[in-house]
């Protein structure tokens, strides 16, 4: 049923991957990565601070380079690929979308928590008015039932979304969960609205979940080279392409070219490979927003408490995406309660200690 089907891959190494390097991408790195992705045939490349436009902050970490410079460099470099940006209403504003559009961005991915779609109406409308593709994200989609998720997806569709993504921000979904959610959207939305899936690999299911999503009707899939992303990373673009090749699913992407980029750029140059370790596994298991990982590790070091305990407690308090401030507060509280063992925490990214 998937043989010969075309699936559009969006590579988010330069956005979700920004979390893994604490938003330190340079113009030179972005230019080289975009050139390689573009030449490999990746049709959509996302470039933004990890937390979206205007995410550069104390709460989420300051960007080393203004993201608009990175977006401009990406747009100037890509010959075929569309450059997309991410926006979270409540963090960035329509003003930021306009600035990105001026620099050449062709798509805006607008993300809300899975129950809060109605805060995205003005941003979706503005994106369409700017002549950009409007792609929407229902984040932390493990937290609600498929039927409720569909109701939120329909809202986004009614505001003008071209694509609605089921986003597994916590990497918490098993394959059955992905199947139920993607199926609900595919069957319930207008056939002209595309359905996407964005994985996190915290339970080791990133690529498998992407496959299930396609089998259930998704035709937009996110990946990042070597999985570079928050938590245990995303589904690796090169692995998705390899698996899809074997299944006869068309992506138009040169496997060897993206595998080279993963090896040379992420593996060797950045020295990073996201892995499923204790902290990222707990993120997936407890259903916590993946980008809390490095914040928890930093706070763990600062307060001498175990990172996975901080993450568990943040999950217990039902935190949603963007509540990085709660990570810091919880670490301070755990330390005050004497939960610290004083031990240094292991990094979740092999080589991150460099």
């Amino acid at each position, binding site marked *: 049923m998937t043989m010969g089907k075309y699936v559009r891959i969006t590579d988010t190494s330069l956005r979700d991957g920004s979390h893994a390097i604490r938003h330190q991408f340079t113009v030179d790195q972005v230019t080289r990565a975009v050139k390689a992705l573009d030449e490999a045939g990746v049709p959509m490349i996302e470039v933004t601070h990890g937390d979206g436009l205007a995410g550069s902050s104390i*709460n989420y970490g300051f960007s080393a380079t203004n993201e608009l410079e990175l977006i401009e460099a990406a747009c100037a470099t890509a010959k075929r690929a569309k450059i997309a940006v991410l926006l979270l209403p*409540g963090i960035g504003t329509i003003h930021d979308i306009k600035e990105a559009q001026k620099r050449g961005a062709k798509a805006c991915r607008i993300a809300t928590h899975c129950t809060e779609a109605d*805060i995205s109406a003005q941003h979706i409308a503005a994106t369409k008015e700017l002549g950009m593709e409007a792609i929407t994200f229902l984040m932390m989609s493990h937290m609600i039932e498929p039927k409720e998720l569909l109701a939120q997806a329909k809202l986004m569709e009614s505001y003008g979304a071209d694509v609605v993504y089921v986003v597994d921000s916590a990497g918490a979904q098993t394959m059955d969960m992905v199947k139920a959610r993607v199926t609900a959207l595919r069957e319930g939305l207008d056939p002209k609205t595309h359905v996407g899936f964005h994985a996190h690999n915290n339970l080791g299911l990133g690529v498998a979940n992407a496959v299930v999503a396609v089998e259930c009707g998704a035709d937009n899939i996110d990946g990042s080279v070597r999985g570079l992303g928050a938590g245990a990373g995303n589904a690796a673009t090169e692995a998705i392409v390899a698996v899809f090749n074997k299944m006869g699913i068309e992506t138009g992407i040169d496997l060897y070219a993206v595998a080279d980029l993963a090896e040379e750029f992420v593996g060797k140059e950045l020295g990073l490979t996201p892995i499923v370790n204790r902290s990222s596994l707990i993120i997936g298991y407890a259903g916590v927003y993946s980008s809390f990982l490095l914040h928890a590790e930093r706070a763990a070091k600062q307060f001498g408490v175990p990172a996975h305990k901080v993450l568990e407690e943040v999950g217990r308090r039902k935190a*949603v995406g963007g509540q990085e401030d709660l990570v810091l507060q919880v670490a301070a509280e755990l330390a005050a309660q004497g939960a610290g063992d004083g031990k240094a925490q292991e990094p979740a990214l092999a080589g991150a200690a460099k």
Partner: protein
Amino acid sequence: MPLNVAVIGSGNIGTDLMFKIFRAPELEMIALVGIDPQSDGLARARKHGVATIDNGIEGLVARRDLMEKIEVVFDATSAKAHLHNAPILEREGKFAIDLTPAAIGPYIVPPVNLTEHLDKNVMNVNMVTCGGQATIPIVYAISRVQPVEYAEIVATIASKSAGPGTRANIDEFTETTARGIEVVGKAKRGKAIIILNPAEPPLIMRDTVHAIVENPDREKITASVKQMVADVQEYVPGYKLKSDPLFDGDRVSVFLEVTGAAHYLPAYAGNLDIMTAAAVRVAREVARRRGVAVPVGAGR
């Protein structure tokens, strides 16, 4: 003689305002103005013997008997509606306390600049945003000790406490709050982030204030923040510091929680409570300036 006031907007905010006005001895609730005759707010006003208008500001203006009495009008509608209402209130010579993001008049955050604009010939003041009322006092508490290069606030509110107005125009929240952090909080640069959390039972409003201060004086900043929290508690008793300020290099972080007084809105909606409480605080000051005698020991 208490100061006679009216409230435009019979939704959650307007109705909570009414209940707070009942509790303020200097204020007399004359009329509640809505546009939906069936609204719970108007029904409650009628029950309490307050005049109700169900056809908006035009209906209020037509009631000359009421207009003669009213001196202060709270606007708890929307930014768009306030742009319509403001010139009418000005023409009628009413002092307007604007709880919408329209921000025609100057910002007031009571513990910081309650009297700043009341001495001037200003007839319209704005209450910034809920996140602004909760966090700007803390930004100011730091900036009155040492210059704040940059301040950033993160407001997390229960999804249930974010009304349709906020949801339809969330950019207004971030932009207005950021400006308030600069103008009233005196940070050189401000940024605001708002997060809606749908957890059940609904979460109490949380606010985090991060500030960049060169070589922060820990003792002085901590003392100033604690004093400010006490000042806010005078009109929002549920305003609490979660811990002493955290210092990390040039960064100061303050964690707050705001529990509402539950006069009409539920306790978790501290974000709405701090807005209505601040607006009533302004009206009480206007009353004082207009010579309304406050009964001894009355009100808080």
